[in-house]
């Protein structure tokens, strides 16, 4: 039991920031007043052996690192697959073992790995686990044991996914959308064991993620420290929270479509399978609806885009604010934009299906909702830019990645407005324009944030700084290289080069596309290899990096204010922190320093003109 907590009269009355700081109701004249603890001290599991401390670990910080490393490993597999695809596209027949079947398998596995096993796991599993308890002032996630099981479920899901590379027939080659009927019929590579392992792996991922997601949501809702109101949470937490809520509601559709397709494959049910004649022979299937799968899949698939994007939005807001030494412009607007985008993302899914043959009126409705979602998104972009306007910007690696994010995100967002309109989408769909769009908006942009976040939080996790010099090289290679990859793809799309084609043979646009394809391939190889700078930077900084000390960025948010850096098990030592303000009090007029941490009581900064939060 903590000394502030009294079981009998645990205060359950509501308290907004007004009553917390004692301005209304005035339970106390003390301006530093924060009402007492509602919750007893958390009962924590303390590992003693190597296995319970590092492997089956129940500490969210270690679990976050485990998630991070596993996700990065799968991400590197995805990166290598993209190289192989690019080699085939740029220099057909250069690599003899890339046949058409292998190419489709690489396309499929690259897509699925990057979207689900890399980005989702990295943002929510990695950053979520590490940052949520620290940023809201909890000792750990609320269910540490479930959290541990969540990681190991994810780990098994990754193992099952990787196993599909080694089964007869190889992994599935149905494209990451796994559309039936082709996904489970002979003729598609990996239509036996490959697709089954993919579906099993996805189901395991959903189960594991549900366990983790419950932890994230409840830690944020029910385990914040004293004074941490919802509107004092860093935007990182808002982004992760909303993304997790989306995941809890979107992954069920994926699970259901996986179950139904597994049954179609293994028991020959006909949920998604129409009557099919194959090689002159009528199959046993009949009466099912392939479009139903598309609806289920995209009801998951579109929120999935925002499951990846919203944590990136949140994290980048915090990084920009810290490194521009200025409060985030329109904090409340940013929060409502995140929540609004999250809500709207459930009503736009069929814009992925304009060419699927669904009722044309659907296209009309979904084009409208798609364009509406651009409003809160654009609002966020404006707010980032206004935050940077006349700010005291530190041009370090973190800020460079943030700026890179804004640029790539605006680029990808604008092409999204093109594709959201049915009339423009129909000629452009299934061309490289689509590839360029979604790689810009949900590939490169979130990746920029991840890299910026690694440079930002590496000192917290390891206690050492990453090298700025290598970091800048890494940024410019990545940013310029990624632009050289995806910017020409817009043009390829306009001249009609179709996506997912193994080879163009003697198509009329080949002449102008060949040179560009070669250029893109070379750029992709360079960008990929330049990530070695990043890996080298991380590995070498672990031992030779400059010691970071406490709060090296002079940030306000709680994760930097632990008694030990890196934070120890239980995070906060003897007493939980008490929060008096939001995390964005930078350059406040009248304050001695250019930042006021969240734990600084008002009486210590009496002359500062802080915003009331």
């Amino acid at each position, binding site marked *: 039991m903590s000394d502030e907590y009294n079981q009998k009269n645990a205060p359950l009355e*509501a308290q907004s920031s007004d009553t917390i700081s004692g301005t209304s*109701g005035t339970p106390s004249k003390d301006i530093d007043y*924060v009402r007492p603890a509602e919750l007893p001290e958390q009962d924590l599991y303390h590992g003693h052996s190597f296995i319970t401390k590092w492997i089956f670990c129940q500490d969210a910080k270690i679990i976050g690192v485990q998630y991070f490393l596993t996700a990065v490993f799968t991400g590197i597999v995805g990166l290598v697959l993209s190289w192989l695809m690019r080699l085939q596209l740029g220099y057909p027949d250069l690599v003899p073992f890339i046949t058409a079947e292998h190419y489709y398998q690489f396309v499929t596995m690259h897509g699925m790995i990057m979207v689900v096993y890399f980005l989702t796991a990295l943002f929510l599993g990695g950053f979520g686990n590490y940052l949520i308890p620290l940023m809201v002032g909890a000792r750990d996630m609320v269910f540490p044991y479930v959290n541990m099981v969540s990681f190991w479920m994810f780990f098994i899901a990754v193992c099952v996914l990787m196993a599909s590379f080694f089964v007869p027939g190889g992994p599935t080659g149905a494209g990451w959308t796994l559309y039936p009927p082709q996904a489970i019929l002979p003729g598609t590579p990996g239509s036996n064991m490959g697709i089954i392992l993919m579906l099993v792996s996805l189901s395991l991922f959903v189960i594991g993620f549900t366990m983790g997601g419950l932890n994230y949501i409840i830690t944020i809702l029910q385990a914040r*420290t004293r004074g941490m109101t919802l509107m004092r949470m860093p935007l990182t937490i808002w982004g992760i929270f909303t993304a997790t809520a989306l995941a809890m509601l979107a992954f069920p*559709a994926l699970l259901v479509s996986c179950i139904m397709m597994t049954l179609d494959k293994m028991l*020959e049910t*006909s949920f998604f399978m129409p009557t099919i004649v194959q090689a002159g022979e009528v199959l*046993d299937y009949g009466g099912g609806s392939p479009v139903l799968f598309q609806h289920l899949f995209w009801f998951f698939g579109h929120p999935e885009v925002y499951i990846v994007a919203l944590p990136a939005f949140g994290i980048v807001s915090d990084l920009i604010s810290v490194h521009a030494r200025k409060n985030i412009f329109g904090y409340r607007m940013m929060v409502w934009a995140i929540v609004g985008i999250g809500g709207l993302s459930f009503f736009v899914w069929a814009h992925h299906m304009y060419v699927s043959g669904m009722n044309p009126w659907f296209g009309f409705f979904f084009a409208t909702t798609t364009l509406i979602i651009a409003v809160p998104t654009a609002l966020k972009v404006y707010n980032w830019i206004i935050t940077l306007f006349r700010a005291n910007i530190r041009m370090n690696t973190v800020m460079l990645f943030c700026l890179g994010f804004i640029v790539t995100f605006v680029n990808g967002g604008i092409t999204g407005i093109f594709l959201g309109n049915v009339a423009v989408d129909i000629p452009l769909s299934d061309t490289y324009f689509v590839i360029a769009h979604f790689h810009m908006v949900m590939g490169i942009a979130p990746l920029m944030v991840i890299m910026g976040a690694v440079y930002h939080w590496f000192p917290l996790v390891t206690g050492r700084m990453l090298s700025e010099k290598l970091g800048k090289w890494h940024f410019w290679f990545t940013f310029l290289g990624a632009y050289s990859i995806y910017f020409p793809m817009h043009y390829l799309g306009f001249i009609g080069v179709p996506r997912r084609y193994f080879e163009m043979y003697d198509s009329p646009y080949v002449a102008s596309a060949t040179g560009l394809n070669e250029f893109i391939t070379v750029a992709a190889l360079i960008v990929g290899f330049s990530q070695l700078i990043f890996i080298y930077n991380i590995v070498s900084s672990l031992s030779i990096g400059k010691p970071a000390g406490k709060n090296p960025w002079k940030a306000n948010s709680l994760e930097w204010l632990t008694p030990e850096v890196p934070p120890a098990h239980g995070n906060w030592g003897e007493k939980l922190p008490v*929060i008096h303000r939001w995390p964005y009090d930078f350059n406040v007029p009248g304050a001695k320093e250019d930042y006021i941490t969240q734990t600084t009581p008002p009486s210590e900064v009496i002359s500062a003109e802080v915003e009331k939060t």
Partner: protein
Amino acid sequence: MSDNSLNNLPGGFKGMSHDMGSDQTAFKGVQWGKVMMWIFLLSDTFIFSCFLISYMKGRTSTVVDWPNTSEVFSLHVGGVPVPLLLIAIMTFVLITSSGTMALAVKYGYEKNRKMCGWLILATAIGGLTFVGMQVFEWSKLIHEGVRPWENPFGAKQFGSFFFMITGFHGTHVSIGVIFLFIYARKVFRGDFDNGKRGFFTTMKSDYVAIEILGLYWHFVDLVWVFIFAFFYLW
């Protein structure tokens, strides 16, 4: 805390948002485990909704006629087909078990260990009976030739959806029954009275766990009502 801070709080919707947005907890005085179960059930609701919506889509768009459900599901009593007989009994048993579960929660909070334990056991037996009758119904249909991939009475999707959705629900019931038996044992042993630490989680046991299990059980019953309506009454 003094009362006068409460007097100054706004009412209505604004008051609610003050409540939710205040520090420490969004839902005042609700245990972590209970919030977890509610949110899990919300997620599970989406799973069942996806299943049932797929079923509606499959049923309305199939080219072969859907079988006449009141014939397919009827039981023959003395040579006379009685529609909805088995299903009425199944539903009655399951709803009754919800009642015993609610009573178990009440006695649990009153720390009436014996009553609580027996009522959980009764709930578990109700659930087991339900699963047993489902096994009977499945084997009857299988005996008549209905399979996930074919159906002698009409559209083959009937078998697919029926076995998949009732199977998924039956799995939920079975998991619930397993936990009910485990909890009954824990109650009789007195784990919830002396706060014995869990074998896996190492967390202290508390009677709130029974309410959480109760939430799950009521949810499973509620889902059954929808499955009942969509499969047997439509």
